[in-house]
């Protein structure tokens, strides 16, 4: 066995998850039929619980584009994609000397990460509670507009 290239490219968690999904891995009982080994399923189970499970190729490309102006190392961007930090304290272990290099830019970076990458399922529970309050108000307004449009339609 000869190792031609020990490092032929780094993969984000999302890419590995996508690769396993394209071969047929899923959470439901079709596991026995899919051509995936049990050890690969363990990796799939781990990735599906992480922040990678509802990322898309487009969102990752968008994040790469927007990260260019922050001059981050490749390893740091990889960490950010895999972990999806949602607050400055989570960015701290990822980016070395974050205060010196970025200062105010940390807040912008986190805003951008939160808007571009979808939150993972366990983080979504805490974010949903905050958003649910706003949504209830919006629903109330929507129903009033809907009734006005239907009345207009019957009139016409």
């Amino acid at each position, binding site marked *: *066995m*000869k*190792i*031609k*290239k*020990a*490092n*032929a*490219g*780094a*993969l*984000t*968690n999302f*890419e*590995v998850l996508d*690769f*396993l999904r394209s071969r047929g891995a899923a959470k439901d009982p079709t596991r026995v039929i899919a051509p995936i*080994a049990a*050890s*690969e399923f*363990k*990796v799939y*189970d*781990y990735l599906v619980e*992480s922040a990678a499970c509802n990322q898309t190729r487009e969102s990752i490309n968008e994040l790469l584009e927007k990260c260019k102006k922050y001059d981050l190392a490749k*390893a740091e961007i*990889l*960490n950010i994609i*895999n*972990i999806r*930090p949602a*607050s400055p*304290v*989570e*960015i*701290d*272990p*990822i980016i070395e000397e974050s205060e010196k290099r970025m200062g105010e830019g940390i807040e912008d970076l986190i805003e951008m990460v939160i808007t571009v990458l979808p939150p993972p399922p366990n983080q979504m529970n805490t974010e949903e509670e905050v958003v649910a309050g706003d949504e209830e108000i919006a629903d109330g307004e929507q129903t009033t507009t809907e009734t006005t449009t239907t009345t207009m339609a019957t009139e016409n």
Partner: protein
Amino acid sequence: MFFLSLIEHTLRLPPHLLDLPLNEAIKGELESLFLDKVLANLGLCISVYDIRSIDGGFVFPGDGASTYTVEFRLVMFRPFVGEIITAKLKESDANGLQLSLGFFDDIYIPVHLMPNPCHCEPDPENKSQVIWIWDYQEQKFPIDGLDEIRFQVQSVSYPPIPVEQPKESKPFAPMMIMGSLDYDGLGPVSWW
């Protein structure tokens, strides 16, 4: 966490696989050879990514099987130093913590890389286990097994295969990851 590695290997394809299309037969053989095995300095092999080229197909004299030289890429699990990974607590004893990723269990956080200062208390539920508690500004933060723990990779080592092992020692771990919790933002997710 994951890398692609390009490998070339001379593969002997047993004759009972002759009815399968070549690609599938080679893929099956490669999977049984490499999957879930640790390759020195490359990491744990997760999956066969693709097959780049297949050469050969010669049958050597005295052998019933054909031999192919295959070039392929493997998805390897090999975290780099400084990577942040979220894992679940598996065991906690006086030497430190052991974390597990589901597919990989040999992640150790030794005592000197735990958040400073901290102390351990015997676990009331389980006699052999110990709970680690972080003392920060006079507040106690225990590391319990409830939520996931974020750690930073300090080093990845591949201990050489021992010739003899005393009975009842832990099964040999070909790849060990040493992690650290000693930084802002690391430790159980619920702390932050």
